[in-house]
């Protein structure tokens, strides 16, 4: 088969890097690094969006790329960094499952999500369809990250990377959602972050730590 055009190669590279980042997030325990990784992810997402925009020449994608940049590369990471400094939570505790185990599970998840993406991308008309599997993988991996993390902060970072994965998926499957939706989603993400900010301080002033094991008192079973 003919070699892929340059932009597509770049796009796939981005996708691959995204996946890599998710894995590193899965293993990373230093929260500051987590945030940086998130920012990087955002940047990659932005780049991918730009590529697609340039390739397909859809105006609104530029806009969404801009949004992504403003929000996920600049806005949120800065916010998070400030939070980290204010609340000085730098390290996450030992994850629930040890890193190698998590990695193994992550691998299985990736396989699964590729399999999942197969029928869909078979139908997709977009040039970027092959990356859909990666998008799903990113989503599920960040899901996994949320499960294994013990600090509120790192859970949030994982949550945001899940959002990234969603965006990437949307982009690669359908060149993004309708504008109104994109805007709405972006707004929601922003608000979510603000709410989170409030949250952290509330939690902090209650438990003077962001450790999740404080948040396990409401339960049924002993």
């Amino acid at each position: 088969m003919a070699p892929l055009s340059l932009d597509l190669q770049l796009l796939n590279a981005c996708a691959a890097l995204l996946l890599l980042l998710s894995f590193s997030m899965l293993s990373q325990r230093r929260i500051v690094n987590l945030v940086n990784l998130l920012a990087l992810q955002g940047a990659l997402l932005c780049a991918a969006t730009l590529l697609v925009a340039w390739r397909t020449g859809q105006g609104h994608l530029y806009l969404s790329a801009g949004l992504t940049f403003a929000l996920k590369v600049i806005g949120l990471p800065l916010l998070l960094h400030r939070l980290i400094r204010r609340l000085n939570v730098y390290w996450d505790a030992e994850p629930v499952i040890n890193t190698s185990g998590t990695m193994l599970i992550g691998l299985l998840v990736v396989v699964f999500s590729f399999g999942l993406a197969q029928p869909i991308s078979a139908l997709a008309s977009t040039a970027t369809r092959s990356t859909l599997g990666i998008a799903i993988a990113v989503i599920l991996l960040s899901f996994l990250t949320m499960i294994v993390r013990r600090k509120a902060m790192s859970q949030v970072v994982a949550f945001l990377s899940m959002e990234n994965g969603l965006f990437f998926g949307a982009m690669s499957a359908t060149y993004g959602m309708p504008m109104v939706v994109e805007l709405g989603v972006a707004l929601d993400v922003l608000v979510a972050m603000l709410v989170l900010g409030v949250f952290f301080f509330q939690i902090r002033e209650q438990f003077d730590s962001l450790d999740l094991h404080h948040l396990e008192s409401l339960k049924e079973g002993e």
Partner: protein
Amino acid sequence: MEVLLLLGSPLLGALTLWLFGARRWAPDLNVVFSTATFAAACALTARVIATGPMLLAREQFLVDPFNVFLVTLTAFVGLTTSIFSRPYMRIEAEHGRVSAGRLRLYHSMYQLFTATMLVALTTNNLGLLWVAMEAATLSTVLLVTLYRTPASLEAGWKYFILCGVGIAQALFGTMLLYFAAERVLGAEGVTALLWTHLNAVKGQLEPTVLSLAFVFLLVGYGTKVGLAPLHNWLPDAHAEGPTPISAVLSGLLLNVAIYAVVRCKVLVEGSLRSALPSQMMMGFGLLSVVLAAFFLWRQRDIKRLFAYSSIEHMGIITFAFGMGGPVANFAALLHMTVHSLTKSAIFFAVGHAAQKAGSQLIENIRGLVTISPTIGWGLMLGSLAILGLPPFGVFASEFLILTTAMKQQPWATPLLLLALGVAFAAIFGKVQPMVFGETQARRLPHPPALLPVFVHLAIVLMLGLYVPPYLAGWYRDAARLIGGP
């Protein structure tokens, strides 16, 4: 026009109350805005009765039999709740549990929450639906943590994270839907997320994609419906927030979520032509009913108790929608209506009871009927209604659901029988000593204003014995719309 008013009034209210929410007359303002909203809803209803379903604002908004009564219901319960919360929150403030600043937050968020729910109900755009659902979550998170107690913070956190993750799945599902739709409705995706258009072409949508999409949507919105095993946030959130919020969460938000699920189910079923979605919903429904019934057994906190009962009823509704068919759908819609009315009424009564006893623990609440007959009887009748005893409306829907289940899914009936029996024993066994029996507490000097409770119960009672023809008509049309085997 009506829709504009309908959505505008709460948004405006949110804004105004954000500015003046701390004033002494803020609660009354809250009531005023809710009244306006309700009036708009009534006007809308009247219009629909007159002219039938309609599409507005370049098809972005849709009012059809399926959502019109839900809109009215939402506006109505929103109104009664605001009326109830007026004295309630005042007393809370007097007890020093909430500061003025938080009251401001409370009032404006309350209006915002109403707005988001109304948007979610009326929008024709599945993407917008998602946005509204997420917004509803965000606007209530801070309400759940209003008291800033450790428990409430924990509840809020779980609510935020679990629902956030869930809703993210829903977004992906929506995306897949869009993906499938785009291939049919053309690349220029203006109409591709409009439900009406999708419904028109649902036959041609790609089955495999839709089935995947449905899984994501079901898990996503199902988390907000509180289907087991995705329900874990629900009891915490409902129990720890201020009671008016518990009332609207249980009474309204769950309805909206299930509304979203059903909207999606219609499309998916149309494209799949297989029983898969129905079976999934029935499975989730049964699981929720049974698990909730057993969870009920061990509750010590009264609001948690009724939160679990909400899970149980959501399970019943989901199961009914899963069964499908004219009778089951009809029953499910009726059940949505009566459940939200009854459950909010119960929470009103519970709120006063707990406020009086100064505790939410069941063993601290005793002999209500002696302390204050209105609270006592309100709680007793409400619980009996929610337990499905006639002549209350809940019985009507459960009657239809059970008989239909016996005909269509007999295998499920033993489980339902078991669950309903256990739930009855659990709830009634806990409510009876709270209402009846001896108590040390002396009689309330002034009877609390529980008008909303009895208004709700009266309506539920009426629905058990007489359903207004146009309401029945909507139910029927909606049932036909939802379809099923």
